[in-house]
């Protein structure tokens, strides 16, 4: 049996942002969503390398949309989280929840 995939913090953020955006997840909306939810400015380079890495791990898939004029006729690359990706991010979040048990942190609601 293959070892479970481990995720870094930024990988989890990107996966959760894709899940939140559903069918509209591409680099521009992902950066905006990450900024809105975490107040963190992800550089385009960091985002692209993370998305490529997640795709190599089989945690996300991508497809190209139709070219649009405001992008100089270039297609958007939309991302979707795979079942393996959902499983990996859920496992990581459960681990965080277990670590939080018994702790009282300011502004953090406990499950």
């Amino acid at each position, binding site marked *: 049996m293959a070892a479970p995939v481990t995720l870094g913090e930024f990988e989890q953020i990107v996966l959760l942002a894709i899940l939140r955006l559903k069918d509209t997840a*591409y*680099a*521009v909306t992902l*950066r905006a969503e990450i900024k809105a939810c975490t107040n963190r400015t992800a*550089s*385009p*380079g*960091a985002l*692209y*390398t993370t998305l*490529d*890495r997640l795709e190599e791990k089989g945690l996300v898939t991508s497809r*190209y949309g139709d*070219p*649009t004029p*405001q*992008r*100089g006729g*270039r*297609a*958007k*690359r939309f991302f979707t989280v795979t079942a393996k990706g959902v499983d990996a991010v859920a496992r990581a979040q459960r681990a965080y929840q277990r670590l939080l048990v018994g702790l009282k942190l300011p502004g953090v609601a406990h499950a």
Partner: protein
Amino acid sequence: MRNVHLAEWLLSLAVSRESAASMVGDLLEEARTRGTVWFWLSLVGAVCSLIRRDVAGNPMRMLSLAMLGVVVQLALIAAAIVVFALGTLAVGVAAMAVGLVDPRHQPPTWLVSTDAQAVGPFVVAGTIFGYAAALVSQFQVGRVLAKRSPGHELAPCVVFIVVGELVLFGLNVAMGGIRYGLSYLASYQLLLVIPFNVPLFAGAIRIRNGRAATKAA
């Protein structure tokens, strides 16, 4: 006006043409509010991140390829020295055969002068040949490294440059160059990095373009 084709070409050095076009589209979309400087800074940052990812993905492989590059370059330079020596020998023999040079005497001083005011043609030819050999060997090293790293053609070249710079710096220090000061040595090396590594990347890009063309066909 930003040159989007140049931007797309730069990104296509690290990812597929389709991905590069999509990334440029993303950057163009955001650049409408953020401006041209942001566009180019983000683009260069993205290319650097993608190449760094390729290096970090398999660092030992990249390091061994860089070492192979050093060996190939040393072999090519040694071959160039042999070719130059044989070439000058042949010219000398030919000159003696037609009576231009007397074998009983030393070569005329004007021929081999290293005086800055009147550098001898032999020294000029040797210098030009040396630079040409260095540039050609860099091009060949780029090709060799790219052939062995499909999909990540530029990553071993970057590691090769870093290794080469460290070796060169070590040699410069060992040969007493440190007396000019560390900053002088570092800036001297950095000045040489750009012209001497253009052919290295050109060789690697040629292989990458060849692969992309084969794939497209």
